[in-house]
């Protein structure tokens, strides 16, 4: 089975490109201030809320969005569903952006960035630290994603056959590339276990690793579908509805499993007492209603056959999982002593800049490199 990928082509400097460039520029300005005057000068993070949206959105949600490559590799290579192969390459690329920029966000967020390489030095390792596992795993995975994407560069230079040799060892990269996200996406859940009483019982649970990794995989499939529709619209390409509808068929079972375990855990821990007052309770219901709605939209096969429904349900799913991740790290987190957190405008600008950089990179890559599948009728 062979699939052709082709650059989309067309002019690079469009209005979309210009807008993204402006946002990226604002972010650079904020970051200049952050490095000159300290984190307090640009962010609303505090000793009570030491982690803000840079960690929660750019790292936690960002890497979950970046799980497109992971989710597709799982399907295509581990469960041997070759028919989804045309979707893999762009998914891997989005993953590369998501994880690369998460790495960049961590660099911006940590206070003593010049010591960052201590994480790679075994002399400093603390093997009890969940964060050490997350950091090493993410660093390794960025490398793996880069290698997984490498054939695209080769083909861009030497044509469709250029990556043949490289593809022979691809299965090793794929295996490692599935192992690493399984490890760090579950650890990103375990990370909050140690915060103990500071995290509301609506989220504090020994099953956080399971919740985080399943929703990361779900977001991986969600983003593949969502992105396919966006790019089809943006570049006037045909919708890949048939294959996407089939892909979406994987999701109801996983989402259903997640919801059953999540609610069984809530009931067994007797946590629902906290679900009826305050902002965290409200967000708890928003999270769960979105996910149940996504399940209702995805479960009937007839609904999945419509491209519009598919796109909408993928969006609802992405939103629901993202709300869960915000709830786990910020909304449900209460350090006490009257501390509150809402991101500052400069903090939000940095996050928007990172999204903008992602869009810029996407536009450059799909236009110049053979990333997207060549249209079927071509």
């Amino acid at each position, binding site marked *: *089975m062979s699939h052709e990928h082709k650059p989309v082509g067309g002019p690079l400097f469009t209005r979309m490109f210009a807008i993204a460039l402006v946002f990226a520029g604002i972010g650079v300005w904020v970051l200049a201030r952050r*490095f*000159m005057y300290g*984190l307090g*000068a640009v962010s609303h*993070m*505090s*000793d009570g809320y*030491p*982690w803000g949206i840079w960690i929660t959105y750019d790292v936690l949600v960002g890497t979950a969005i970046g799980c497109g490559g992971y989710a597709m590799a799982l399907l*295509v*290579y*581990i469960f*041997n569903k*070759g028919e989804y192969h045309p979707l893999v390459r762009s998914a891997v690329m989005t993953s590369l952006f998501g994880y690369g920029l998460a790495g960049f966000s*961590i660099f911006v*967020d*940590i*206070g*003593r*960035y010049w*010591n*960052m390489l*201590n*994480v790679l030095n075994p002399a*400093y*390792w*603390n093997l*009890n*630290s*969940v*964060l*050490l*596992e997350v950091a090493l795993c993410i660093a390794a995975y960025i490398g793996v994603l880069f290698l997984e994407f490498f054939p695209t560069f080769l083909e861009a230079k030497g044509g469709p056959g250029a990556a043949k040799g490289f593809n022979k060892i691809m*299965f*090793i990269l*794929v*295996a490692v590339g599935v*192992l690493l996200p*399984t*490890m760090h996406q*579950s*650890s990103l859940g*375990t990370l*909050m*276990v*140690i*915060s*103990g*009483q*500071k995290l509301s019982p609506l989220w504090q649970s*020994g*099953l956080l*690793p*399971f919740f985080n*990794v*399943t929703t990361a995989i779900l977001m991986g499939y969600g983003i593949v579908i969502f992105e396919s529709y966006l790019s089809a619209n943006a570049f006037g390409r045909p919708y890949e509805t048939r294959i996407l509808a089939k892909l979406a068929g994987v999701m109801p079972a996983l989402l259903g499993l997640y919801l059953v375990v999540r609610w069984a855990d809530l009931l067994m821990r007797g946590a629902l007492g906290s679900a009826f007052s305050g902002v965290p309770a409200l967000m708890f219901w928003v999270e769960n209603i979105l996910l149940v709605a996504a399940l209702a939209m995805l479960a009937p096969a007839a609904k999945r056959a419509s491209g519009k429904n598919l796109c909408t349900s993928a969006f609802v799913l992405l939103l629901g999982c993202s709300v869960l991740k915000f709830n786990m790290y910020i909304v449900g987190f209460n*350090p*006490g*002593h009257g501390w509150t957190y809402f991101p500052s405008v400069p903090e939000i600008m940095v996050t928007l800049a990172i999204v903008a950089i992602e869009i810029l990179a996407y536009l450059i890559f799909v236009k110049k490199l053979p990333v997207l599948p060549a249209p079927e009728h071509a």
Partner: protein
Amino acid sequence: MERREFLKLTAASGLLIAADALPAQASGAKELPPDAVGLLYDATLCIGCKACMVSCKQVNSQKGGALWSEGMTAPPYEFAGGAQIWDAPTDLSGKSVNIIQLYRSGSGTAKDDPSGYSFVKRQCMHCVHPACVSACPVSAMKKDPRTGIVTYDKDACIGCRYCQVACPWNIPRFEWDQAFPQIRKCQLCRHREEGKYSACAEACPVGATIYGKTADLRTEAARRLALPAGSSTRYPLGRVDSGRFVESKVARYEQHAYGLHEVGGAQCFVLAGVPFDKLGLPQLPEGAFAAKSETIQHTLYKGMIAPGILLAGLLFAAYRSSQDHE
């Protein structure tokens, strides 16, 4: 092995990685180090003079102290208002690692009464199983194997602030206003020369804060809790074993030494006449959250066996698929 079985095994180890496979049993309570030291703060004795805060800031701004930085010219004072007259911190911060705070209720007239007022001293509790030490990816937070003091090493620290997320008392503080920030926390004046001890205990004129071996402090706390309110007793000054005493009337105590059992126990304790949660010392379970987190982590990654099996399965499956796709 059949492909099917291999996949099953792979899926099983994948599940193990993804889920909290074992019940969250605390992985055994940790032992107190042999020469564990700490502080005993008795709010009923405290007169709120803040001499401990002055002394702490001064001593810890000396070379090697918890507030010291290369090239600093004055201690990191926190001035109130515009007039740069006196140090007036209102909370722990990157500039203050020890603080006396006031709890007040109602008319606030009766001392050490839930409907009156009480002082409370906040500083690192030096946990037996510290969450910050467990959390730190680069071993910047360590627990001294002999004294049990929880120490900070800026040269290891990457500034990720996971210690702050982890600490149930929000003790580690970050220098948000610095381009080259550090974490700041009480390290029990470990930088002082032999024979000297914690500056706060040394400065306390009424014996509200005393320093000593944690085992002795436990005994002293138990002795005080057993005293009848209104009686009179001798309270040690400075160190629990200093041999210097001050005679005081015994107040009514909440019948608990805070820090004795909370999150696996600590090396510092608080006694008070007002319920502890009103003083900003929340009710906490006896098991350490760090133990639960470590149990999950070590269950999944012990000897890298589960990830190893998972990887083998993934390699097998990916290889088969890549052959099929050819």
